[in-house]
């Protein structure tokens, strides 16, 4: 089952930045890369309960604001201590200026 949910307007996110999106008790992070592509991951760091949307986007990396754990927000891959567990990623697309995220089951 595919559930495409409207997360935000594309213009809500600056290039090379991230915003938080909460939906039905879950929290996600929506990214806009320097080359104007959009990506989505779980919103909390896999190390500790910290919102990644407060972190720093650098190229294809999101850095957690608390302990500087780094992930590729494109693949979810953890890039070294103190994060060891990959981040879950979600399909995303932009239609008519809206950013849609597929949450699935």
């Amino acid at each position, binding site marked *: 089952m595919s559930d495409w949910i409207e997360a935000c307007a594309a213009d809500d996110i600056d290039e090379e*930045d991230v915003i938080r999106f909460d939906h039905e008790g879950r929290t996600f992070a929506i990214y806009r890369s320097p080359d104007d592509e959009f990506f989505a991951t779980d919103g909390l760091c896999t*190390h*500790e*309960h910290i919102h990644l949307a*407060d*972190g*720093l986007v*650098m190229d294809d990396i999101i*850095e957690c*604001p*608390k*302990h*500087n754990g*780094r992930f590729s927000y494109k693949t979810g891959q953890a890039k070294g*201590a*103190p994060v*060891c567990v990959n981040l879950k990623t979600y399909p995303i697309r932009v239609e008519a200026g809206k950013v849609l995220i597929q949450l699935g089951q």
Partner: protein
Amino acid sequence: MDAVLSPSRDYSLIGRDSARAVETGLAAAEWYHTDIPRKDMKELMKRVDGPAIRDTAIWLGSMIVLAALGIALWGTIWCVPFFLAYGVLYGSASDSRWHECGHGTAFKTRWMNDAVYQIACFMIMRNPVTWRWSHARHHTDTVIVGRDPEIAVMRPPDLLRVALNFFGILDAWHAVIDMARNASGIVSAEEKTFIPEQEQHKVIRVARIWALIYAATITLALYMGSILPLVLIGLPRLYGAWHHVLTGLLQHGGLADNVIDHRLNSRTVLMNPVSRFIYWNMNYHVEHHMFPMVPYHALPRLHAMIKHDLPAPNPSILDGYREMVPAFLRQLRNEDYYLRRKLPLTAKPYREEFHGKAARAAAE
């Protein structure tokens, strides 16, 4: 909730107070942050290489020059000032470089952070793997009893230990013991509480490499019949430690424990430019804890932006000691005593339940 943990605190990471911190919600809690617009925060967090390349060139370049002069004058009294200065850059400036590069914020370029981190860790004798994880815990649970592995002065204060550490004596001794234990393949039960299993082999590998370096240095000293190799490698951790202890004690000394607001358990101290160079601006310690992503060179800007929400900084190192030392002395008689930070009228209060009546009474 009452934050006071009388009759005595259990600082073990696997002890009574560790479990209590988890039960009461003090562990891994949500800490207070001053509101900063995202645009400003992004500007503050921005990574650049320039300041850290400049400072690292001055730091390591000065060490080379001072060591060369010290070696040239070896055997005369004139070598002493050069080695004393070399020692501070080795045994104290390495503390802040280890710290800042561990956060990954000093340089924009990753390998530069990692290279300086490894060099600084060796100088300060902190296993780069162990201490990366212990410092993550320190930021999660800052001065939470039983959770924070980096509490410099526990209560009641062991002032002899503090005094000895101005010369690195106990810290270096424990570092050697830890290195020997790790090099023999043992990771302690406490280390295992904050180092994930998949990282523990790296602790052992680094300890073995360091043990070889120290063994080679000692062998060279024996071969030369001179202590000079150890004056250059190893001993500066003792004779040059004083500055990092002098500044480091001020970070949290005498302030509240078991609170989740860095304004109450951390201290910002205005310092002279030389100390700030050695300390890489960690004198802005409330700001650093509140926003660990902000590089050292941006901390003065961050301070200016949020000072309306913070306690007034101590205007000097001397002023910091004037309030901290009497607090340590009172804690010898009453370990629940602490310095209660006054927030300015413009500040937002936060989670009073963790700063309860009994805690206030102890502070008065």
